């Protein structure tokens, strides 16, 4: 931990997710960005260096070899690398926030289970679609008897980077697992579309829930409350449709990006990164409170 009362933080991965995370960390009051490590001397990384960010090109090894230990490491690489990254960082004691759909660590959706953050060293931010749907599905499933859930995510082609394209299988599986775990509903299906539309389609998540006791009034109230909570850490979160017909609730949400370096349609990047920052800041608050008690 820094003398400044901020946690030292590094970002592993210099793709769309990693670079936006770096920008968001720079704005945080309690996170201090110490390193962004990519695997190649990519144009993105060189641009980041010109903006004054500390960068390295050795991937995970750059973090292991760094002179300082990091309090928090964000893994914004590829699902198939995450377990190895977590193992290599275990000795450093860093808290790892996983942005890949690896399903290795404890799943965290800040609007639902913030309290689990402090007790795990490796936390998973699920998926962008998972961050958008879980708080809403969780709220409805707690109040109603739900037989099945289906979630359809659509993201604009320019907002889906190479690792995400290679990880579509993991995306589907991890999103389904998260919905089951958070709602207790077994019959769950997740689908994802990548839209080639120009101008680009805004990130969108549509949810279907089947349950005999669903009513329009109840579902609307639950969705409104859950959306208000999400908006405390994802400003561009909005509900576009919320209806109940024939025992099926249909809720669709759109997320626009509020990050200055992201195009407005890239809400998929914004929501998972905002959730990750929120999780890291919760962890920081816990650490700093503890440190405060120790010194007092």
């Amino acid at each position: 931990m820094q003398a400044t009362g901020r946690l030292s933080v590094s970002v592993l991965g210099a793709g769309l997710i990693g670079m936006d995370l770096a920008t968001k960390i720079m704005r945080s009051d309690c996170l201090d960005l110490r390193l962004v490590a990519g695997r190649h001397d990519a144009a993105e990384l060189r641009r980041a260096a010109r903006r004054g960010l500390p960068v390295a090109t050795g991937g995970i090894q750059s973090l292991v070899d760094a002179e300082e230990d990091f309090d928090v490491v964000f893994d914004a690489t590829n699902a198939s690398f995450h377990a190895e990254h977590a193992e290599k960082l275990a000795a450093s004691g860093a808290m790892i926030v996983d942005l890949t759909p690896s399903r290795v660590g404890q799943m965290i959706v800040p609007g639902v289970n913030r309290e689990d953050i402090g007790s795990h060293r490796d936390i998973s931010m699920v998926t962008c679609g998972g961050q958008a749907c879980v708080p809403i599905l969780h709220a409805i499933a707690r109040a109603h008897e739900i037989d099945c859930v289906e979630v359809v995510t659509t993201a604009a082609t320019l907002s889906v980077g190479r690792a995400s394209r290679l990880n579509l299988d993991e995306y589907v599986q991890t999103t389904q697992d998260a919905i089951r775990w958070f709602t207790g509903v077994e019959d769950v299906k997740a689908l994802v579309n990548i839209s080639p539309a120009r101008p680009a389609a805004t990130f969108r998540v549509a949810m279907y829930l089947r349950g005999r006791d669903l009513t329009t009034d109840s579902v609307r109230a639950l969705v409104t409350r859950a959306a208000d909570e999400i908006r405390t850490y994802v400003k561009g979160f909005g509900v576009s449709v919320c209806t109940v017909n024939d025992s099926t609730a249909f809720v669709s949400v759109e997320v626009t990006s509020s990050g200055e370096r992201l195009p407005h349609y890239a809400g998929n990047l914004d929501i998972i990164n905002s959730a990750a920052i929120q999780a890291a800041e919760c962890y920081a608050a816990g650490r700093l409170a503890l440190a405060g008690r120790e010194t007092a």
Partner: protein
Amino acid sequence: MSQEAARDAAAGRPVQIHDPTLRDGQHAVRHSLGAEQLRAYLKAADAAAVPVVEVGHGNGLAASSLQVGRARLSDDEMMSIARETLTTSKLGVLMFPGWATTQDIKNALAYEVDLVRIATHCTEASVAERHLGFLRDEGVEAHGILLMTHMASPDQLAEECARLVGYGATGVGILDSSGHFLPSDVTARIGAIRAAVDVPVMFHGHNNLGMAVANSVAAAQAGAGILDACARGFGAGAGNTQLEVLVPVLERLGFRTGIDLYRLLDAADIAGRELMPAPPTIDSVSIVSGLAGVFSGFKKPVLDIAAREGVDPRDVFFELGRRQVVAGQEDLIVEVALALRAARDGGSPAGSGTGSC
């Protein structure tokens, strides 16, 4: 081109017919085909020596869903019936990355499917990299096919097809998912793809503007080696290229399909009798859908939702086209219908509004 010149150009070149009647046709009957219907048509197509027959939910493996409709039969049931019934025709399945996963492909391989098609939207070939690579490693014939191809230029499609071949595709192709193309559009696209790859190139037509057979002929003349066609045109929206029309037309033009005409006509009669309440027609809504460039499979959900919300389905299609929706985005239909109703009634959409829904 005169008929003689066309025959000379074709010069007995083989064209492989790929028959997705039992997959694309599912869109026309809400994915409700049953076991006896599958058996009846599979047997007939097999007897006619149709080279490849495809089965599945309308959107392929694992696509039975609330979004598009739940299938009456599971993937396992459909593949099992097809495997038992087919003796000469190859068995094909379709898979969309993001809708199905490698696990679903593995499951299909347990039924010894002969050909797996991996489908992505027109500019998104890169999402097929893993699945095509997996099938290459398994030694299974795998084709990469592009959906909604009216949304991309011939050069873009050629580039995407070259990418698919790089990932391991042993055939590539384009679907006119919206029935939007005219023959010259097809000629340009197939020509550009042929110049970019050295594997067979496929064309899959829809008949919204009455062009499916003409477009398929244009594709063959531009060098396509695989053409999709369905019995009675059984398929989404206005239907697909009509199989029992396309085959004799190709033969007259000098292409060889290897299909027995009388048995093909028998198969089409069985399809007409057993699979569908009525053959697909180009109704007014289908024309609008084709003009708007919207996926043909949207027809039934658009009609359902437009009726429920009291709006004109033609307006829904044009607005969906303006938003450039792609197959798989059926969830936008409700939003568009509610917005149209609100615009008409002069208020904000019921059940919508940012934040306070």
